[in-house]
């Protein structure tokens, strides 16, 4: 399932398909902006020294999109940014695949950096998406236990 929220300056997508970084950059780039910051999450091959085989992402999709919209709105309220894009994967991801791309365009780079970092930091705290790490000998929902 893919959900896209599209306005002139905001794009939010939850998708089971591979994320395309170039597409994300192409969408935020604009003649009025001077700087773009892009954060790309990638699936690491190990966590705390233990080999990861693959990841599985589950989302409460309706609510996740709502929370992502709130975060993008906060970014627009806090910084003079021009375009904000958040693409997040769901489903099974292999090592090296991309769970998330956040791209922010602004006239000046400080706003782009600040907003992009705020978005990923907040996303990881509030957006109802869950990651399960699959190891050779078991699996674990990340962050579930203290």
């Amino acid at each position, binding site marked *: 399932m893919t959900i896209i929220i599209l306005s002139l300056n905001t794009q939010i997508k939850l998708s089971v398909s591979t994320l395309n970084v170039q597409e994300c950059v192409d969408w935020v780039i604009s003649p009025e902006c001077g700087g773009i910051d892009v954060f790309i999450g990638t699936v690491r091959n190990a966590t705390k020294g233990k080999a990861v085989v693959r990841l599985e992402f589950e*989302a409460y999709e309706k*609510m996740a999109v709502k929370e992502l919209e709130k975060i993008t709105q906060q970014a627009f309220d806090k910084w003079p940014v021009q375009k904000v894009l958040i693409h997040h994967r769901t489903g099974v991801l292999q090592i090296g695949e991309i*769970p*998330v791309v956040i791209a922010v365009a602004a006239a000046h780079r400080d706003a782009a950096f600040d907003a992009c970092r705020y978005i990923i930091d907040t996303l*990881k705290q509030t957006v109802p*998406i*869950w990651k399960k790490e699959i190891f050779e000998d078991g699996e674990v*929902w990340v*962050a*579930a236990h203290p």
Partner: protein
Amino acid sequence: MNVNILAFGIAKDIFGGPSVSLDLANDANISNLKYLLEQQYPRLKKLATYMVAVNNEYALDGDTIHERDEIAIIPPVSGG
């Protein structure tokens, strides 16, 4: 009233499925709901923390639950 509760992440494992249904008093609030769920599913208490969402918004312990609300258990998120 009878409410249906969606589960995600580890809560789905704890409930043994993507949703459970629960009988609640008509003026029940989130706190009451959590208490009943924790009685039935003690593993819930072992979570670092968990939230409840009502109609796709995070709810507070004192918030009243209404029939036909969409209720979901939100274990610690780990997206990104």
